[in-house]
Each structure stands twice: as C-alpha cells, then as structure tokens.
C-alpha cells in the first residue's frame, strides 16, 4: 500500500465511524450536471426527466432513503460544467455526481469528482480516455463506451454483405472515433472517409460526390442539427430508397426523428436500447415516461433511468450510509437492478457489457419512430477494457 492509499483508507475508516450514527436519516444528495439550453438541450432534458421519473416512481426515495436531485445546466460548455462541479463538491456536498451528456465535458469534469473520492455515474458520455488508461474505481458508466454503437453499425453492415461503404463524420475527435469504431468491425471496402466541418448545415457537395461514387451503403455520424440537415437533404436528393443509410442511434433518436420526420424512414441505426424492447422493466418505464411527459423515451432517457436505478441499488445496499465508500462501489459494480435493457453488467473498467441492437426507422400511424429489428452484439464489451488498471 502506498502512503497515499494508506492515508485514504484511514480517512475513509474515520468517515465511516463518524458517519454511521446519522447516515440513515440524512437524505442522499445527487448532483446532475447536464445540458438544458442551447442546441443540445433535448438530450439533457431527456436525461433529467427520466432520472427524476425514477425517483418519483419510488416515492421520492432511492434505496429507501429520501433523495434530493440537484440539477444544473452546463449549456454544453466546459467552463460551466467545471464551475458547477466545484459548487456541488464544495458547497452542496453531494454524494454522487451524474448526468453529463458531452464527452469533452466529461473528460474535463469526471477526474475532479473521482479525485475527491466521490462517485460519478455517467448517463451518456463514454469517451475512451476514461475507459482505458484513465479509468477510475469511482467512475461508473451506465450508458456505453462511445465506440460501441458505431462498432455495432459496422458489424451489421458487414453481416448484410455490403462491400462498398461510404463514411461521413464531422472533422473533430468524436467524429474520427466514430469512423474508427465502425471500421473496427466492418470488413468491406471503404469507398471514402469524408470529414465535414463541425456545425456544417449544407451537405449538397458531399451528397453529390457520394452519389457519383456509387457505394452500396452510407454510414454517417453527425450529431444534433447537422444530422437533421444531412438526412433531410439525403432524402431530398432521392437517395434514401437507393443507397441504404446507416448510423448510430444518436442520429435517429426519438427527439431527432420528431424533427426529421418522414425523410428518415428506411434508415438503419444501432442502439443498446429502444422503447419497444420486450422486458418487464422496460414496459413499466415506457408507460410511466409516456404518461408523465407525453413522448417516447429516447436512449438518453433510458440510460439516465437505468443510472438512477443503479444508484438506487447501491444506496439500498449500504442503507443510505454513503460514507461506506467501498461498499457503495462494490454494490454499484454488482449492477443488481432491473435494467430497461433487459440485462446489464459492468466489465473490469466499470463500463457496460451489454447487447446492442439494430433499429429501423419506420412510420407508425402519424409518427416516425424506431423499431428493433435484430440483435447485433451479445454481451459486447469495449475495446479499451484491457488497458484499464484499477
């Protein structure tokens, strides 16, 4: 044991002794940093709503202990997220931090949470920096490792026997990661890897080149409004029926589909969750979410709901005594909660080992939505787990 570890262990032991008497009466405080304004607000709103729903369904308690959820808006800005986490840790004294949507924010904020010995549970962002060498015993990801969905799309395109595929992503780190993830499992020829400007709105030039290259399929990752624009223009060029379109679930989630509408019908996308997954926990969740908010839950909502139930299981295991850090971690690691994904467990780097599905965008009455068509990966783990030493 190094000196630092010894000191840490001693501090924790002290905390357990002093905290034990009052623990059960003290409410658990959860700090959620998420995006509630700006272009990416829909994702954070889904996460917040679903997390709150989980608490509400349990009568305002998680693990049988009254739970206080403090939500703060980072407006998708690193500086804001850093300020919020400082406030959460120093002033509000939260027990657990959660909620960050964007990977660049997570990379900036998560280490300052885990360094303080507090638990961070991710409801979305899963950058590889925190999955491999940068993993931490206090960091749990209840969503995925970022590459996972792109990998599943690559596998599915390979399974379909498509030999010539055109790839498109924005020219920034997550865009390049998505293409790396896709290529990790795609075995055919890559006709072109096109990198567009971040925030680009018009894709006419790219679509014309793409048509001229005559690929058998197109894989793209364009988050947010960029994806809405691309899919609309792809459909307007008359291509959606000619060259099948594949993407990660982000580009076709329920919120995006409500904006893109009919243009997206016929596209395929990968996700570890869809509202139509057939299991008891999901039926309860979807019904409650639709009743409370009048819309179908997105994958962001499902991940946040699962994160809340995961935390619920850990709080229950220590009977609300969050000072028992080792016991809290052990309970989280067990992941003993009814996931809306059907099953869920953690790998050695505290990232999910889970099934990933392909969904097709279909028209159901007046609404455009996703339908699960088949499972691509069973118990899929990320590529960085082996690098993690904790």
């Amino acid at each position, binding site marked *: 044991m190094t000196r630092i570890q010894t000191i840490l262990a001693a501090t924790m032991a002290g905390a357990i002794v002093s905290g034990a008497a009052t623990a059960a009466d003290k409410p658990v405080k959860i700090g959620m940093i998420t995006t509630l*304004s*700006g*272009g990416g*607000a*829909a994702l954070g*709103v889904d996460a917040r709503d679903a997390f709150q729903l989980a608490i509400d369904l349990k009568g305002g308690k998680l693990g049988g202990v009254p739970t206080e959820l403090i939500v703060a808006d980072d407006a998708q800005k690193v500086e804001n997220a850093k300020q919020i986490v400082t406030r959460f840790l120093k002033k509000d004294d939260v027990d657990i931090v959660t909620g960050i949507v964007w990977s660049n924010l997570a990379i900036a904020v998560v280490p300052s949470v885990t360094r303080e010995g507090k638990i961070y549970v991710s409801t979305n962002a899963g950058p590889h920096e925190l999955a491999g060498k940068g993993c931490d015993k206090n960091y749990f990801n209840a969503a995925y490792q970022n590459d996972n969905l792109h990998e599943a799309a690559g596998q599915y395109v390979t399974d379909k026997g498509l030999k010539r595929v055109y790839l498109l992503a924005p*020219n920034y780190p997550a865009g*390049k990661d998505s293409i790396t993830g896709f290529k990790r499992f795609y075995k055919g020829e*890559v006709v*072109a*890897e*096109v*990198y*567009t*400007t971040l*925030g680009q*709105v*018009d894709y*006419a*030039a*790219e679509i*014309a*080149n793409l*048509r*001229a290259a005559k690929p058998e399929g197109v894989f793209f990752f364009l988050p947010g*409004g960029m994806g*809405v*624009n691309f899919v*609309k*223009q792809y459909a*307007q*060029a*008359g291509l959606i029926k000619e060259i099948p379109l594949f993407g990660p679930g982000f580009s076709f989630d329920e*919120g995006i589909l*409500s*904006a*893109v*509408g*009919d*243009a997206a019908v016929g596209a395929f996308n990968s996700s570890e969750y869809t509202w139509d997954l057939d299991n008891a926990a999901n039926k309860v969740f979807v019904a409650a979410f639709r009743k409370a908010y009048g819309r179908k839950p997105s994958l962001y909502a499902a991940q946040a709901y699962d994160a809340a139930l995961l935390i619920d299981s850990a709080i229950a295991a220590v009977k609300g005594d969050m000072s028992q850090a080792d016991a809290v971690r052990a309970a989280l690691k067990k992941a003993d909660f009814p996931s809306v994904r059907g099953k869920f467990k953690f790998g050695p780097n505290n990232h999910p080992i889970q099934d990933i599905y392909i969904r097709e965008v279909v028209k159901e009455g007046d609404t455009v939505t996703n339908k699960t068509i088949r499972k691509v990966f069973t118990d899929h783990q990320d590529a960085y787990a082996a690098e993690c030493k904790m």
Partner: protein
Amino acid sequence: MTAQLFLEQTLNGLQQGVMLFLLAAGLTLVFGIMHLINLAHGTLYMVGAYVAATATKASGSFTIGVLAALAAAGLVGATIEMTALRKLYKRDHLDQVLATFGVILFFNELVKIMWGPQALFLSPPAALSGTVEIIPGIPYPAYRLFIIGVGLAVGLGLRYLIVNTRTGMLIRAGATHRDMVGALGVDIDRLFTVVFAIGAMLAGLAGALAGPMLAVEVGMGEQILILTFVVIIIGGIGSVRGALAGALLVGLVDTYGRAFLPLAMRAALDPAAADSIGASISSVAIYLLMAAVLIWRPRGLFQAYGG
C-alpha cells in the same frame, strides 16, 4: 471526376451562393449605408425560418408560410431598428457589436420560450419535393433549383429598386452623403428604418427558404452569419453588386473545395489521410479566398455606390 459531377457541384455552389446573397445583401445595405455592424442579422433569418415553418404547418401552404415570414421579419426588423439600434448609429463599432449581440441572446431565448428547444421540421411543397434531371444521369433536387431561381429574381429586383427608384436613389446618396441627403429635407430616420426593414425581409426570406432544407433551430442564424460577413468583405462593404459576386464566389469556392480537394489529395496520399487533410484544407478555403481578395483589392471587389 466526370463533367456531370462538375456541373452538379456548380449548381450546388450557385445554390449556396444565392442563399448567402439573400443574407449578405441586407447586411451590406445596413452596414454600408447606416454604418452599423449588425450581428443580429442572423436572428432575422431565424425568425423567418420559424415563422415560415409555423405558418406553413398551420395553413398547409408554403407560399403563405413565406409571406408570413417576410412580414414577420420586416416587422421585427423595423421594431429592432426603432427601439434599439437607432441609438447606436453615432456610437463606435464595439458598442454596436455588444448591443446587437444582446439582441441575438434576447431572440434566442424568446424563440426557445415560444417554440421550445427542439428543432422544427418543414418539407418542401409537394410540387418541389422531387428531383429534376436537368443534367443527364443526375437527378437534382427541384427545391434547390427553385432557390437558385428565387435568389436571382430577388437580385434583379434589388437592382431595379436601387438603380431605378427614388428610394434607391436615396439609398445610394445616403451611403456616401448622409448629411447632404438630410439637408435636402429627406427624413433620414425613416429612410434608415426602410433600409433596415428591406434587409430584414431579405434575411427572413432566406430563413423561410432554408426551412425545408435545414433544421429550423435556435442559433441557426449564427452558423451562417460568419460566412455572410466573409461575403460582404470580399464583395466590398455597402455594395449589393459586390454581395452578389462575393456570395456566388464563396458558394462556389466552398462547394468546390469540399467536393474536389479530398479527391485531388487522393492522387498523392492514402485515402484516409487524403480525406482528412482535404477536409481540413477545404474548411479554410473561403478564408484563404478572402485573404487573397483583400491583398489584391483591400476594399473588396466592388465599392459602395459613389464611394
């Protein structure tokens, strides 16, 4: 690369240029005549897009949507001019930047309160939703052709307004000899409001036309504003002719860059590196163009009327 692809990319470049022109024409009028840096020009574009999407949905007619957008953008523009911007003409440019930036924040919040944070969706009208095969073998979206047509018609209309009408004469005179125009008994305040409203309506029209192609979302105006400023700097501040030339040039260079630079790079590099490096160079292509034009003609391609 085939000749068809080159023609198709030229059409794409023209279409992008025409959209930029609609925005740049209004911006350059306001800047050239009122000497006001208006960062909130993109806000009027956003207002146009939101109103067009809403009115089209409510009425079922895209034409009504566009007319509603024109009216709304003109009204909002005139209101902003009379309440906020009028006080800024005599202040320096930094104050104008700060104040109009405030207008952006105000309208972004207002739009979010009224329409929510989700993007809106608008389809092209049925008659324009298909493709047309004007280049053999290449189906081109009819809606993009329609935009090119509208943009060129608006360009001709503006030329008529500026060259052949009394308002146009005052606009030209006001650009260079503001005090003299005032001394001749012309109501400068009203002239400025009219100019601002014309600029606002052009931005609103661009927004309404963008709706069926792009996501109608909060902040959509800021994305395109930077390109618009590049256009008026290249074209020459205050000149509508310059705005047209600059917009088409920027549209074509941007489109050709994105379309052909990665292909050209593939001749020398392995495909993945070529695509990546080509993308990086093409994203700065228009700024290189701007630098080159400014070295050659420091005041832009065309100068303001009489200037």
